[in-house]
């Protein structure tokens, strides 16, 4: 996107034309109606418009009813609520994490790294994860440009520049949408095992995940990771279904489904982006040793004992609390 922006800026202004598939509605119209002003007042016209059947996508309603009012309601929700406030959510999350990091700092491995590692994720699981991550980032960036470009980019970089970015983002978003569905299915298959909630997760909740001190036991995935997994899956299904409806609007026969889809799509996507920022924080600078599991597929034994003690005992057959013994000792 940065590269695109660099190339696009200088020549954006003089190179805009209607889309290739645009239709000129003036074609074939030679003369206007003879009674252009009409015989009824504006009030009557708009009353008739508002009485239109909302099930009709286009101006085909009987008795001169050609307009629905749900479109206006949808526009108000989109402009006054979604565009105005939703974009702040990721910013707020970043701010909160920054404050948390400054106060708490990174969660270090107690006792430091042991130097011994145990396998945590297979290669195919890691590929599925990074595949989803890559697609998610592309869709997130392009989606935010489509949703917020008009209020965030246009005032500062100009309408023309925003127009170029929005056009590119829209095409990219539409194309990567189906890839997201594939990534979601793959991710589900690879990670669903071990992500069902268990009683031990209650302790994790009561101790707030150990983020404010104290040790919490967990199996391969803790409550936070399980919650994130199900958020991705359920939120992913929501934005996939609503995205497909928007990509293929003729799948539904009521325009209100399209309007609802745009709202739910935005809410679900920005919500996931906000939580993903937290996921990225914990997976990188927030917790020492976490990133190893997805980069190398292995984690330090001390990290495993500290954060996933029950899983450590399950895979190694050793106690997570017993002092380390040297088997090779004479």
């Amino acid at each position, binding site marked *: 996107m940065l*590269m*695109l922006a660099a*190339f*696009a*800026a*200088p*020549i*954006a202004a003089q*190179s*805009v*034309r*209607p*889309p*290739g598939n645009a239709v000129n509605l003036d074609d074939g119209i030679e003369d206007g109606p003879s009674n252009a002003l009409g015989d009824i007042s504006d009030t009557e016209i708009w009353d008739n418009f508002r009485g239109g059947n909302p099930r009709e996508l286009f101006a085909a309603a009987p008795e001169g009813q050609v307009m629905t009012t749900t479109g206006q309601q949808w526009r108000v929700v989109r402009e006054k609520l979604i565009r105005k406030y939703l974009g702040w959510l990721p910013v707020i999350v970043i701010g909160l994490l920054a404050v948390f990091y400054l106060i708490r700092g990174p969660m270090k491995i107690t006792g430091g790294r042991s130097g011994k590692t145990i396998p945590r994720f297979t*290669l*195919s699981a*890691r*590929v599925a994860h*990074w*595949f989803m991550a*890559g*697609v998610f980032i592309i869709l997130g960036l392009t989606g935010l440009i489509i949703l917020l470009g008009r209020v965030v980019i246009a005032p500062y970089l100009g309408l023309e520049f925003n*127009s*170029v970015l929005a*056009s*590119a*983002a*829209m*095409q*990219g978003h*539409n*194309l*990567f949408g*189906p*890839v997201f569905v*594939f*990534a979601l299915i793959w991710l589900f298959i690879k990670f669903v095992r071990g992500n069902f909630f268990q009683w031990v997760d209650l302790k994790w909740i009561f101790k707030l995940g150990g983020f404010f001190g104290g040790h919490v036991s967990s199996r391969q995935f803790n409550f936070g990771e399980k919650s994130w997994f199900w958020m991705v899956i359920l939120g992913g299904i929501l934005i996939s279904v609503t995205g497909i409806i928007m990509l293929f609007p003729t799948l539904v026969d009521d325009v209100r489904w399209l309007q609802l889809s745009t709202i739910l799509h935005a809410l679900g996507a920005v919500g996931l982006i906000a939580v993903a920022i937290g996921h990225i924080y914990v997976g990188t600078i927030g917790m020492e040793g976490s990133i190893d599991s997805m*980069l*190398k*597929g292995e984690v330090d034994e001390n990290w495993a004992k500290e954060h996933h003690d029950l899983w450590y005992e399950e895979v190694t057959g050793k106690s997570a609390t017993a002092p380390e013994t040297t088997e090779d000792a004479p």
Partner: protein
Amino acid sequence: MSFLNFVEGPLFTFAAAVFVLAALWRLIGIIRIGRTKDISPPKGSAAVGFIKGNLRHFIPRGIFAKRTMVHLVGGYGFHLGLFVLVFFGVYHIDFLNERILGFSWPALPRWAFLLTSAIAFSGLIMLWVRRISDPVMRLISDKDDHIGSWLTFLVMLSGCFALEQAHDSLRATHMLLVDIWLIYFPFSRLMHGFTFFLSRGQSGATYGRKGIDL
């Protein structure tokens, strides 16, 4: 001359010339190296081995199929997808028709183009992610591998961004990246697109001559 005209005109001509000449130069160079004469009596046909070696590599042997599934699916998805996009995308056919060949052929419908793009993108991302995730792949990969992957990705992504055909700047960005890709191709491992049949054939010919059934 606008920037778009420049990247689609003189720069594209230059890039295409570099691509063709340098790729030929490298292919001829590889073939001219030849190989040490094998003085042992042949037990089979090297020529048949050359062909069988090429064909046999398209299908993994049973025990490797599962272990290399990501590579297999990603590899086929990306390469076949890219081939279809390049030669059956309507804008590509128009470009080739107007500027190089002077004739055209039926293009993919838009839905098929989008589906193929999704498959090709998925394949490329899978291959690169595998490259950085697999310890062995990570070890044997160098800058050239990553540049080749990313350059190809950017060419595809910029093409996808320009699909609406509403802004010359987007098309110019795509064409500039295509020009860079064409120039980079013959001097990098992207050349495997042309040399793969030589290396597979070499192995196949060696085994074929020794009478080993591939």
